[in-house]
């Protein structure tokens, strides 16, 4: 029976090759988008799951306002290093605690020197203490977890790094010289272990773990704090709820002690029910709960929604075509029923047919995935793989689930319709009441077009917004400007200034790509104003090429420019009021003394972050170099766009001064493109998905119109005999679909408006909602729908009516 059903299913598919291809191909496309998403989600979910022992590993998070982007209190991944000792001594459930370097966005590169070879730049080398491998259950290929970091000046490499550096993992006892920043003397570290690379990604990823000894102790002075990552391994069966309560109590005591040392009253700081906070979170949840950023799932939500829609569109095609085809199958159902076949058996038969198609689609989808995965990986900066996947089994289970889901979604309704046919009427050749599900089919077509039209409108508006962004005046000249990852040093700067072609060498704490915001409160005419402070060198503003609106920018001619004159940006000037050039304001410093600053100029706002954030009201000050201006920026402005040679010259100078640390730089053009990258990526994906969704909808419409034309063959023939022209016949068929497309447009307008409005609101600098993408989308959808239907309608119109009327 099963075999015969399968055979019939196959013969039916073969008979309706074109529709079967549309069905299967469409479904494969929909599935591909969905499975890619699944792969990505699996990847994100697999963080920190590489060992069962990680169940007992926790990250410690402290609530504080140190180095948070908005200078407010948050639960932070970096905590006061003293907490490690607190847990070690006061919490008996803790098996081991370790401190690890955190990532600093801009300068996380170390230079590694082996013997006398050229230094190599390696990122993600993290300093820790002796307990690191007691907490994290890494598998040692060489050395052992107990002994590896027993002594100071040791380093443990990951297998991949060892192979990259030495070509082998048998490197125990060798020495590498690690230079951590440009002026660091470097420390020779002995390799004491090699650990295997885990199969799944890690939230705390590293290439090597060092123990220099810096993490062994906490600052002696209670006013000094070190912040770093803290991880603890607890005994099995520890109740985190109870432990977190204990921790909170311990932490309050610690805080009181420390504040006592700082002669500050604990009660002053924590009033009105505010409490210091400390907690443990399981390490598997670290990746999905980043502090003050959207987690991956939030970011991915629109993409997940889109790929689910795509799958839905292809499933809808499937349902529409299957029900439209059902007329052809009606006789078979009727006959089988009188031959003694149960309805249940028929339902199964049709489900098997759907299953056959979805399994073919699934195989096609796997092939497609293999094809598109490299592009997908480079587009999303991930390294996903289907076959070489640590969770291949999970993946297969998910695919099986997806297969069942799609089969049921696509097959259940057609199977139900088909198996419900009344044998008496179909065997009489009366198909009138067979044509069930027309209403549903119309609803589904409308639904498909709502999705497609919404996509088209979205592309239009997104394209306009991104054109607006890439053409927007940034307020500074980003061309011919590079930023070397280095602090300003007179010696080096003077050498560079001598190179012809170099216009300015300067530093600032605020430049696109590396911004360090320092808040301050000033008093102006009795009002307090909150500003963001940026420290610059004399040349920094001209180097950036900012535009002066009023007054002047810093200049060597004015002696007090290095003492107490300031330049404001427009946003800050607006807070002060009008006619402020030459006015002064006061600022209380940390000793309680009031310093007076004079405003000498106002510059146009310039962007240093993406267009999603508005420019902060900022005050620019020149200090006697160094100090807070040391945030690893060295701006170099060229007076020519052919600056490749000049960079070589700079590197030559660099090597003379800093032979142990390679030079790294970025051009501001690259930084700017990078700031648009996320958006571009998102847009490319939307464009791709829209094209797929629109073509799927059209394929569906094409096939559907074929069936409708076939169904109405007799009507068309009669109309022709009565004198209808071909055009009239084509219009007749078009009309029924056109109404659906127009209804879909009307529905999608408000939907697109709401979604796009929300997207645009995410940008501080955005275009006004344009109207014409809405009309364009409507026009496009109508034109292509008419074209699609007309192809089939014309065929129906030009056939000789005799053929249709000859037989009943």
């Amino acid at each position, binding site marked *: 029976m099963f075999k015969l059903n399968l055979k019939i299913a196959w013969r039916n598919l073969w008979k309706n090759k074109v529709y079967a291809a549309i069905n299967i191909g469409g479904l494969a496309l929909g599935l591909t988008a969905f499975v890619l998403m699944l792969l990505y989600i699996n990847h994100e979910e697999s963080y920190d799951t590489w060992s069962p022992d990680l169940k007992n590993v926790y990250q410690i998070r402290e609530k504080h306002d140190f180095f948070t982007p908005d200078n407010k209190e948050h639960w932070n991944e970096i905590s006061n290093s003293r907490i490690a000792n607190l847990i070690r001594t006061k919490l008996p459930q803790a098996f081991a605690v370790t401190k690890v370097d955190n990532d600093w966005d801009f300068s996380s590169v170390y230079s590694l020197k082996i013997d006398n070879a050229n230094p190599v730049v390696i990122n993600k080398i993290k300093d820790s203490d002796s307990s690191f491998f007691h907490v994290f259950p890494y598998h040692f290929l060489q050395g052992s977890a107990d002994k590896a970091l027993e002594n100071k000046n040791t380093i443990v490499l990951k297998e991949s790094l060892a192979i990259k550096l030495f070509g082998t993992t048998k490197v125990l006892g060798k020495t590498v010289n690690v230079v951590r920043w440009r002026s660091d003397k470097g420390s020779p570290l002995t390799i004491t272990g090699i650990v295997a690379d885990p199969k799944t990604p890690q939230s705390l990823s590293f290439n090597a773990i060092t123990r220099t000894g810096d993490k062994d102790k906490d600052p002696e002075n209670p006013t000094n704090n070190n912040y770093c990552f803290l991880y603890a391994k607890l005994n099995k069966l520890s109740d985190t709820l109870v432990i977190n309560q204990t921790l909170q109590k311990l932490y309050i005591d610690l805080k009181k002690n420390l504040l006592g040392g700082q002669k500050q009253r604990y009660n002053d700081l924590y009033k009105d029910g505010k409490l210091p906070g400390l907690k443990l979170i399981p390490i598997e949840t670290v990746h999905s709960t980043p502090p003050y950023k959207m987690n991956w799932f939030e970011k991915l939500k629109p993409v997940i929604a889109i790929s689910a829609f795509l799958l839905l569109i292809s499933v809808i095609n499937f349902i529409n075509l299957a029900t439209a085809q059902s007329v052809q199958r009606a006789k*078979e159902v009727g006959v089988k029923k009188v*031959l*003694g076949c149960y309805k249940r058996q028929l339902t199964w038969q049709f489900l098997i047919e759907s299953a056959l198609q979805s399994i073919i689609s699934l195989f096609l989808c796997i092939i497609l995935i293999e094809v598109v995965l490299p592009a997908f990986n480079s587009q999303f900066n991930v390294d996903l793989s289907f076959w070489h996947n640590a969770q291949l089994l999970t993946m297969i289970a998910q695919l099986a689930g997806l297969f069942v889901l799609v089969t049921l979604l696509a097959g259940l309704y057609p199977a139900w319709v088909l198996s419900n046919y009344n044998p*008496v009427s179909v065997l009489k050749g009366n198909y009138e009441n067979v044509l069930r599900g027309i209403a549903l089919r119309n609803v589904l077509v409308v639904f498909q077009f709502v999705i497609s039209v919404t996509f088209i409108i979205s592309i239009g508006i997104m394209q306009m917004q991104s054109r607006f962004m890439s053409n927007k005046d940034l307020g500074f000249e980003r061309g011919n400007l590079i930023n070397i990852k280095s602090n300003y040093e007179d010696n080096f700067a003077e050498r560079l200034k001598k190179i012809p072609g170099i216009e300015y060498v300067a530093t600032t704490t605020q430049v696109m790509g590396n911004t360090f915001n320092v808040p301050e409160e000033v008093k102006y005419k009795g009002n307090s104003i909150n500003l963001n402070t940026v420290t610059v060198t004399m040349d920094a503003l001209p180097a950036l090429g900012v535009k002066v609106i009023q007054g002047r920018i810093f200049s060597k001619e004015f002696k007090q420019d290095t003492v107490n004159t300031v330049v404001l940006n427009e946003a800050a000037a607006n807070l002060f009021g009008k006619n402020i050039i030459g006015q002064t304001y006061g600022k209380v410093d940390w000793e309680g003394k009031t310093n007076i600053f004079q405003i000498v100029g106002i510059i146009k706002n310039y962007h240093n972050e993406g267009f999603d954030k508005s420019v902060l009201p900022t005050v620019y000050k020149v200090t006697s170099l160094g100090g807070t201006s040391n945030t690893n920026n060295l701006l170099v402005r060229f007076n020519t766009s052919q600056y490749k040679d000049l960079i070589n010259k700079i590197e030559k100078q660099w090597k003379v001064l800093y032979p142990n640390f390679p030079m790294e730089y970025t051009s501001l053009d690259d930084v700017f493109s990078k700031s648009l990258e996320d958006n571009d990526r998102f847009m490319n994906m939307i464009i791709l998905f829209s094209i797929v969704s629109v073509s799927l909808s059209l394929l569906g419409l094409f096939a559907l119109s074929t069936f409708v034309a076939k169904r109405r063959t007799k009507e068309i023939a009669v109309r022709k005999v009565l004198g209808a022209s071909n055009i009239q016949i084509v219009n007749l068929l078009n009309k029924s679909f056109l109404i659906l497309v127009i209804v879909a447009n009307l529905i999608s307008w408000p939907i697109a408006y709401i979604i796009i409005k929300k997207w645009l609101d995410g940008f501080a600098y955005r275009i006004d909602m344009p109207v014409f993408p809405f009309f364009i989308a409507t026009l496009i959808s109508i034109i292509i729908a008419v074209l699609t239907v007309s192809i089939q309608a014309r065929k129906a119109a030009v056939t000789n009516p005799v053929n249709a009327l000859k037989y009943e």
Partner: protein
Amino acid sequence: MIELKNIEKYYSSKGIKHYVLRHVTTTIKQGEFVSIMGPSGSGKSTLLNILGMLEEPTYGTFEFLGEDVTSLNERKRIELYRNHIGFVFQAYHLIDEMTVYENIEAPLLYKKVGSSERASRIANLLDKFNIVAKKDLFPNQLSGGQQQLVGIARALATQPSIILADEPTGNLQSAQAEEIMQLFQKLNKEEGITIIQVTHSEKNATYGNRILNIQDGVIKEDSPTQAPQMGGVV
């Protein structure tokens, strides 16, 4: 074998009853070959549908093999289809996607007949109807008469006790029609299969041994055929 008592069938629209069958009472015995005749719209097809349990009467009782089958659930009805009733249609209604062999096999599969038994029965039927050479062809590769032969073979595959035929020769040329009717007569005479057919043609009706004449939903005449004749050997 079949006992109809006061069968009525009507459709009501806007409160008015449109009768299709009225006061139909009759008995059909095992081994009879009954032809139901009557003009278009007289209700003969409806009567056949009721006999085939494809439609339910609005009123009256219907006993089949001594059992009341006036309204049956799907399971019981399908049991009867599998074991006792074979259908033959005017438009043959072979399944287009199945070969001749598979078409004949289908009811046996539903009846869950073992594979060797199945093969031998099908071989028997193909042989009997002289269509062995055609067994791997699809219905659209056969002539109308051949298709109807396959239709009859399929109806006989489960060895039913009764065959219900709705205008079995309506779509055939006269020579082919005659062949089919002779086949029916032979099945009735030699194998004792009860046959009920609906027909327009006086000539076809004479192959049977009883004619039910229906007009406007009422049995006007119930008579044996005049001269039972054997129209040659098939």
